[in-house]
């Protein structure tokens, strides 16, 4: 067999899948990840479709496959700088940010105790904080601490250096640029939740109990801010009711003109999980159209069977805050033709996905910023949400296909 080297950019669930599938049939894979850990957005989910399993079980298997496979070379905190060359012979320049914490780290946590700087925890989408030196999450791979260089005082402070018994912290490390020669490139850079502060009338960022669907995932996760308890940000109390606002900035010419395909099911899942954990709670889902594709229609049936989940056809366009922190959401209930003002404890905005593709000449995007497969030369591919908003299982199927494409490409 002709052995090829494949570069996979992004180590979320799609990138990991492409990398492993290619490596396990005997090809060399260079897997680079911008963040200090692998797993991407999926690692941040509470539970995901179709089987509603927590992400750790699937990720753990995949991390083990990577660990046991000498043909996968992993570079974390590394970004793609440029792609030169042609189909079958690309030279790719990569930039690895300083690895201040090296692999001597045992994740003992002594550094955290002495670190004087706190930062918003982006793993929890800002719902909690960490120190400037932090363990990204319980199952981080590689399992070691990371340093947020944007807030760390480095040598001016170096309390962590003194506290570390294993001499695992080294602030003398520099940026490292290096090149790899590869047969083909698979972009699996993934997505970013749409910035909900841009949807002015929904008041995300000004009303504390208006959160986004990805934050709701963190609240539902066992390793989330409250170990899976759904408590609202303003007073850490369980909200007596939650309103889910669908298409928050999606299918909207003023924001994202497209449908992100997963938000309806995600909100239905959130409502069901909220109801399981809060039997007294009431959920309202305000929607334009409820999209539950294929066998996921079962989820819609379960939602409809719960009399404490109210489905209201009509988009929420105004939210007011009461002094107690509760919110009044307002929409026209189209089916009855009446304005509906619902007072709820918390609001979850179903925000969509925006693509994370690098701005390079060889990467051509469509009108919405997703990878334009037709316009890009053979040899450079994209997997998962780089092409279109997808759920996890569709992204996996696509990523597996891209492994074959990359080998053939």
């Amino acid at each position, binding site marked *: 067999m002709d052995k090829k080297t494949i570069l996979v950019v992004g180590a979320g669930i799609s990138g990991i899948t492409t990398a492993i599938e290619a490596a396990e049939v005997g090809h060399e894979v260079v897997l680079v990840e911008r963040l200090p850990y692998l797993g991407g957005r999926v690692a941040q989910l509470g539970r995901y479709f179709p089987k509603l399993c927590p992400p750790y079980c699937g990720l753990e298997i995949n991390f083990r496959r990577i660990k046991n496979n000498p043909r996968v070379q992993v570079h974390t905190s590394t970004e793609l700088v440029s792609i030169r060359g042609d189909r079958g012979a690309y030279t790719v320049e990569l930039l690895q940010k300083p690895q201040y914490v090296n692999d001597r780290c045992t994740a003992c946590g002594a550094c955290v105790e002495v670190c004087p700087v706190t930062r918003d925890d982006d793993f929890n989408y800002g719902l909690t904080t960490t120190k400037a030196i932090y363990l990204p999450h319980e199952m981080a791979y590689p399992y070691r601490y990371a340093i947020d260089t944007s807030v760390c005082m480095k040598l001016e402070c170096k309390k962590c250096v003194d506290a570390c018994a294993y001499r695992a912290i080294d602030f003398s490390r520099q940026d490292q640029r290096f090149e790899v020669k590869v047969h083909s490139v698979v972009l699996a850079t993934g997505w970013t939740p749409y910035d909900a502060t841009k949807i002015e009338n929904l008041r995300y960022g000004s009303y504390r109990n208006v959160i986004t669907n990805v934050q709701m995932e963190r609240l539902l996760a066992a390793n989330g801010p409250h170990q899976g308890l759904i408590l609202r940000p303003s007073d850490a109390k369980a909200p007596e009711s939650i309103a889910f606002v669908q*298409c928050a900035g999606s299918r*909207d010419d*003023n924001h994202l003109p497209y449908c992100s395909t997963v938000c309806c099911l995600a909100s239905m899942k959130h409502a069901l999980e909220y109801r399981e954990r809060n039997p007294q709670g009431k959920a309202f889902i305000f929607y334009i159209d409820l999209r539950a594709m294929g066998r996921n229609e079962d989820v819609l049936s379960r939602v409809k069977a719960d009399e404490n989940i109210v489905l209201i056809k009509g*988009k929420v366009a105004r939210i007011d805050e009461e002094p107690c922190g509760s919110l009044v959401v307002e929409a026209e209930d189209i089916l009855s*033709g009446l*304005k509906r003002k619902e007072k709820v404890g918390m609001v979850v905005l179903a925000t969509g996905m925006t693509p994370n593709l690098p701005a390079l000449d060889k990467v051509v995007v469509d009108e919405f910023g997703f990878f334009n497969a037709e316009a890009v030369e053979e040899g450079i591919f994209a997997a998962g949400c780089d092409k279109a908003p997808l759920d996890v299982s569709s992204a996996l199927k696509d990523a597996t296909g891209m492994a074959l494409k990359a080998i053939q490409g």
Partner: protein
Amino acid sequence: MSAHVPTSVDPVFLTELLKAGGENLKKCYQCATCSTVCTLTPDHRPFPRKEMLWASWGQRERLLGDPDIWLCHQCGDCSVYCPRGADPAETLAAIREVSIRHYAVPSFLGRLVAEPRFLPLALAIPVVFILAVLALAGTLTLPKSEIVRLADFFPHAWLNGSFSLVFLATCGFALLGASRFWRDLQRNWPVPGTPRGLFESLLPVVNEIITHDRFSKCTAHDHRYLAHLGVFWGFICLLLATVVAILVILLGGDYPMPLYHPGKLLGNVGMVLLLSGGYVLLKERLSTAGKTSRSTYQDLLFLSILLTVTVTGGLVQVTRMANSQSAYYLYFIHLVAVFYLLMYLPYSKFAHVLYRTLALFHARRTGRL
């Protein structure tokens, strides 16, 4: 309350709406953002989401007898927040415009005023009319006298007599249109068994008209509400000044009235109010053309005529006092514009004074507002 629900679909009506400024209405996907961001809509059966649906189906009967299109002051919030660029504000404006044409009696006058290609004819009618009256009065030539006296050019009796006669006919036509509109209102939104009392319904309408209190809730363009308030009060002042002038003439008082005369003062205050408000409105209409709050031929024409009446009126006053012969020409233009404004009232955008007032009254009477 069981309303008659018309279900007929009229593709021609839809085409008319698309032409009258509702060209994006088909983009609507019924999310109802518009009904929620609107600060003027009642909570029960709010607008404009339902109107967008009826419009895209071409449901003529439902829309023509719909009071809600007249409860809108086109602040444009709905169009700004519309996720599809379907322009609900412009669509409601288009429905209003098509309504005015629909209720026009006689209908050819509705077309005459609505269609740009008939503008020369629409202007020729007052020109010919005035020339004809002048010929009858025997003053078809410019006065030769040293001192400029407008009455020498167009004797007051002839002016007031001829204009009053035509305006009387206009009022008759307007009443016919209004009664047809009222009939449709009642068909679509029947008055409940115990409607609000006549005065109880009328007082808030009058209050709303003179204070613009609902209009002021349109937060997107608050200067537009102030500008309209200026135009409204300016027009009222000028109307009263005209009545005073006619009374002075009838009672044989000093005419032209001296500048310090209360009627004269009222007129000049009105002129300033109307000009400043009208300027703001026209400027906004011209500057936002193509963006939200598009302007149609009818919007611009009505404002232009109103401003022409005011500007030429002011200029006539100045040139007359300066004893300039140009006063006669300006006076002629002024009268053509006044004719246009008053005689075409039921067919131009001016008709909103009629239909909006009726719709407001109906909304109060039925408890909708």
